[in-house]
Each structure stands twice: as structure tokens, then as C-alpha cells.
């Protein structure tokens, strides 16, 4: 009787362990990426960011105010320089609009514009909107671990699902065990590095640890990069629908 019971427990344990192991590997990476996206997006956020677009022979600085909500909605508006003040981009779900005060018109952008550079920077609309593309359109796979500031870092390679509407052949993410995204690399179809985004100066921001500076570096040209520097960042539980509306795109609250 005793033997039988011990054997039963042993079998149960074995089943549990192997099952846990199998699911764990697959689930883990998805969960880590999900957690990282949730971490940097929060439920909703309002931020003011300085953006510097650097090129070999010129450089341009912008100040942008950004609202995000969940993984689908975002609104950016340019505060400075004055020539571009009031230009804005609204994303709701998979739809996107842009507004220009000079011609006073809201223009609906074709979906293909999502992967285009925003304002001539190295960030695409997708990158800026912190879109959920990395979650929905990619399969994730563990590709090793590193350490950063004494904390464990998961290296995850993300390959696009077949038929996913994405332009990258692969993305590589480095996510710290506290779900801070340290690095996101973008590869083309031939798996050559095109650009890489790194999070720097991790410090308390908006009530949690957050990389204050994001740098998007072109792989082949060291002098071509864009830096995002968070001046202010506040996380909210929710933001009202009216912020992510076309009228708000025309008249964003300051």
C-alpha cells in the first residue's frame, strides 16, 4: 500500500514536472515579451519627450507630447520647434491620421505608413506608438541569457509569423528580469542588422524604473541615430476616449 502510494505520487510529480517544463519554455517567452510591453506602455501614459534626429551633417531637435492608452491607441503632437508646432499623429487600433495646422487638414494615413519613419527620424510610427505588433505578429523564442546590473536578462528572438504584415525578418529583444526592455534589434529578411534601439539611464520615472533615454541607431551608419529623452512621464490607469479623437488631434490639450 505504501509502495503503491509512493509510486502514485512519483508519477504525478513526474507528469507535473515534464508538463511544466514543456509549456514553460513556450509560454515563458511570450509572457516575458507581454510583460515587457505592458511594463513600458502601462495602462495609459502621458509623456513629454525630446527627440533629436542626428545625421552625419545635420541634426534636428523636437519636443513631443505623447498620450498612449493600452496597446492600440496613441496621440503625438509636436510642441517645438515652432515651425512644426501643432503637427500631430493619432493612432487608433490599426488606423492612423495625421494633422497639419498649416493646411488645417486631418489626413488618414494608409496602413503602410505605420512602418515608415516618423518625422524623418529612425523611429517608425510603429516604434513610437509602441504598437503591439511585436506581440501579435511574431513568434518568440528564447535565445540565451545575459546579466545587466546584477540582474538576469532574457535574450529573445522574434520571428514574424507567416503572413504577418511586417517588414522585419527578425527582431531580437533583451528584457531584464524586472521586465525592462533594454534593447530591441531589427533585422531584415537576410537577417542583417538594420537598426537597434537601446534603453539607457534606467531611473525612477513615472513611479517605476524606466530607461529615460532611448536611442535608435542605424546599423550601417554610426552617425545616423535618433535619441528620445523622456522629460516627463506619468502613467495612468486610463485616459478618456476624447483624447484619442480627431478633434483632439487638431486641438491637443497642453
Amino acid at each position, binding site marked *: 500500500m505504501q509502495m503503491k502510494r509512493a509510486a502514485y505520487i512519483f508519477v504525478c510529480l513526474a507528469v507535473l514536472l515534464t508538463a511544466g517544463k514543456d509549456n514553460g519554455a513556450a509560454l515563458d517567452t511570450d509572457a516575458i515579451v507581454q510583460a515587457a510591453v505592458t511594463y513600458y506602455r502601462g495602462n495609459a501614459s502621458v509623456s513629454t519627450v525630446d527627440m533629436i534626429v542626428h*545625421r552625419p551633417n545635420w541634426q534636428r531637435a523636437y519636443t513631443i507630447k505623447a498620450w498612449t492608452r493600452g496597446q492600440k491607441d496613441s496621440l503625438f503632437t509636436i510642441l517645438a*520647434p515652432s515651425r512644426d508646432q501643432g*503637427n500631430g499623429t493619432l493612432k487608433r487600433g490599426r488606423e492612423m491620421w495625421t494633422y*497639419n495646422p498649416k*493646411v488645417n*487638414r486631418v*489626413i*488618414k494615413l494608409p496602413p*503602410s505608413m505605420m512602418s515608415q519613419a516618423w*518625422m524623418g527620424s529612425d523611429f517608425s510610427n510603429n516604434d513610437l506608438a509602441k504598437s503591439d505588433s511585436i506581440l501579435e505578429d511574431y513568434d518568440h523564442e528564447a535565445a540565451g541569457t545575459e546579466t545587466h546590473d546584477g540582474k538576469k536578462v532574457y535574450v529573445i528572438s522574434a520571428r514574424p509569423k507567416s503572413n504577418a504584415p511586417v517588414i522585419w525578418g527578425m527582431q531580437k529583444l533583451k528584457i531584464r528580469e524586472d521586465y525592462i526592455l533594454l534593447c530591441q534589434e531589427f533585422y531584415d529578411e537576410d537577417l542583417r542588422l538594420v537598426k537597434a534601439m537601446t534603453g539607457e539611464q534606467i531611473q525612477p520615472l513615472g513611479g517605476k524604473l524606466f530607461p529615460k533615454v532611448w536611442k535608435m541607431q542605424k546599423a550601417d551608419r554610426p552617425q545616423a541615430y535618433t535619441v528620445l529623452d523622456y522629460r516627463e512621464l506619468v502613467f495612468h490607469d486610463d485616459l478618456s476616449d476624447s483624447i484619442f479623437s480627431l478633434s483632439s488631434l487638431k486641438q491637443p490639450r497642453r
Partner: protein
Amino acid sequence: MTSIELKMAWRNIWRNPRRSILTMLAVAFACLLLIFMLSWQFGSYETMINSTVKIQTGHIQVQALEFREKNDIRLAVQDPAAIIRILKKTAGINAYTLRSKTFSLISSKNRTCGAMVIGIDPVREGRMSPLKKLVRKGRYFSSDDSNQAIIGSLLAKNLRVNIGDELIILGQGFDGSVAASMVKVKGIFNSGQDDFDRGLVHIPLKFFEAVYAMRGAVHEVVVTANSLKEVAEIKKKVAAGLASAGLKTKLVVLDWKQLMPGLIEAIKMDLVSGLIFYVILIVVVAFSILNTFLMAIFERTREFGILMALGISAGKLTRLLLLESMTMTLLGVFIGAIAGSLITSYFQAHGIVIPGSTELLRQYGLPERMHPRLSLLSASIGAGIVLLITSLTALYPALKVRRLRPLEAMMSA
């Protein structure tokens, strides 16, 4: 070679006039066909090059290094006046114009498309490119137009706009700022080339400069040469002029082959398929001539036997036969060359419309009426090849005669 041989050869030819005339006509026809086809090919290449070059790229362009590959608005020619000074000193230039271009969003009331916005100098462009003639609806720019646009017919259809409607242009300026402006559709052009009609918006260069904050810079200095032949020389001179001018930005001089690599590829492919056709044509002609010559010898075996019995040497007989075939070939080539040149020059003047090909040609932006181009080269290549091949073919039967034995030959047939 004596006159008696010539006389004999001449008489032999006309002893069977039908056969000889047919042989000569075969040669003449091959010659005519080759001359016409070659002239046609050369002519269509020139048409292709000139018509595509005129509306799109010009024969030569001066651009910033890498602009063609990257189309980056920052890669601009900062001081176009300096380039124009160089051009004015260069001989053989027919016209030049300045263009700026960048990709932007074009938005009508409820539709948005991406398109290439091109700033053009209304006066100079009008003189150089056929754009003015291609405007099918509305009108071409006048010299003082500002926020007006001439757009492609397919783009107009996609955006659902007509003459007088407003379009919003939204892009990025030279300094990285947002470039936005409203323009009114002044003209709609139809070049027949779909890429072109779908993706181009022309606005006056001055207006482009203001909208995109170009500060005097342009993207392309477009040059057309007096003739295609002079392009290489002009390119060399302009490049030398640029090198000695010592400009700040790195500029390159590109010719139409570099600007439109697809065009030269298309020409090469066409030339190869043409070559295959010519080889087949020549082989057919060669065999038909070989056949007539051989038949002549079989028919005349008895005659050759008698001639040999009378003491004519085998060498003399060969020479006689060669003389006959050469005379026929020369006559045939002569007739063919004259007829070919006449027919070709008729069509060179009047042009040909191939029924049903209009659509295809339109895709490549070519006019529907094609003109062959007769040149010394196309005429002499055609005639020369036919002459060479027939002479070689005639050698075989002429040499075969040497193996005849007089007695056997006399007894045959």
C-alpha cells in the same frame, strides 16, 4: 580570269532564267529583310531611349552622390548655378533644366496616396520634356504659377480629383520640418506609362523650394544632348568641369544608361532575341541557296563531263562555277540592298503602326508610331552577312565538281 570565262558564266546563268532569278530573289529577299529588321531595331532603340529619356531623366544628370539610390531630400545639389555655368561652357548640349523631387503623401478630400512630388521649372521643362504635350486635361503651367499641380491621370483617378480640385501635399522638408501645402490641380497628364501616371505630381520649382525649405538647392540638373552620340563626350566634359570647380557637396554625373539601367537591359534582351532570329533567317537562306547551286550541278553533270573531255581543267571549271554563283549573289545583294534601303527609308519617313501593339508600347512609354532608322551600319551589316554566307555556301558545290570523272559524268543522266 578571262573574258571568255565571264561570258560563259553570264550565259550559263541565263540558260535557266527561272532558276537563276529565283536564286537571286532569295538572296535579295534575305538581304532586304536583314537591312529592314536591323534598321527597325536600331530605330526603335533610339525611339525608346529618346522618348523615355526626354520625359524621365534626360541624357545626363548631375546629382548628389547616392541620391539616385536613396532619394533622400538631403542629398541635394547645393549650388545649381555653378553647374549651369559649367553646362554653358560645354558644347553639344541641347537643353538643361533643374528638378527637385521627394516622396510625399498626397491627399484629396477622402483619399490619400503616396507619390513623387517633382518641382519643375515651367519654362525650361516645357522646352525640354514632352510633359506639356502630354497634358490631356486642363493646362500646363504658366511661368508665374505657384500652388498649382500637374498630376498623372491614374493618380487623379485614384484620388478622385479633377481640374481645379484641391490636394494636400504632406512630406518632410530639407531641414527636417513638416512640409505641407495645398495645391490646385491645374493639369492632368497621360504619358501612357502606368508608373508615371500613377505616381507623379509636378509643381513649379519655386513653389517646391518654398514648401520643402530647399534654400536654393535642387536634386537634379537634367541635360539633353543634341544627339545620342554626343552623350559620352558631354558627360566627360561636365565631370571634368565639376572636378575643377571644387564644390562642397559630392556630385556625380550620370548618363541615361546609369539613370535607367532597365532600359539598356531591355535593349540588350531585344538585341539577343533579334540575333537569334537573324541566325535562323540566314541559315534558311544559306540552305536554299545551297540547294539551288547543288541542283544546278546535278543537272549539268553531263555538260561538265563534256567540258572536261574537251580539255577544260578542274580548276577552271570550279572558277567558272564560282563566277556564276558570285555573279548571282552580287546581283541579288545589290537588288536587295537597294530595295531594302528604299523600303526602309520610306518607312523612316512615314513610320509604322503595328496594329494591336499600341497597348504594349504604351506600357513602355513609347509612341505608337515607330520609325526604322537606316544607317550605313544597318545597311552594310545586312548586305555583308548575306554576301558572306552565300559565297561560303557556293564553295561546296564548286569544289564538288573537281571530283567528277569525264567519262562517268558524260554517261550520267
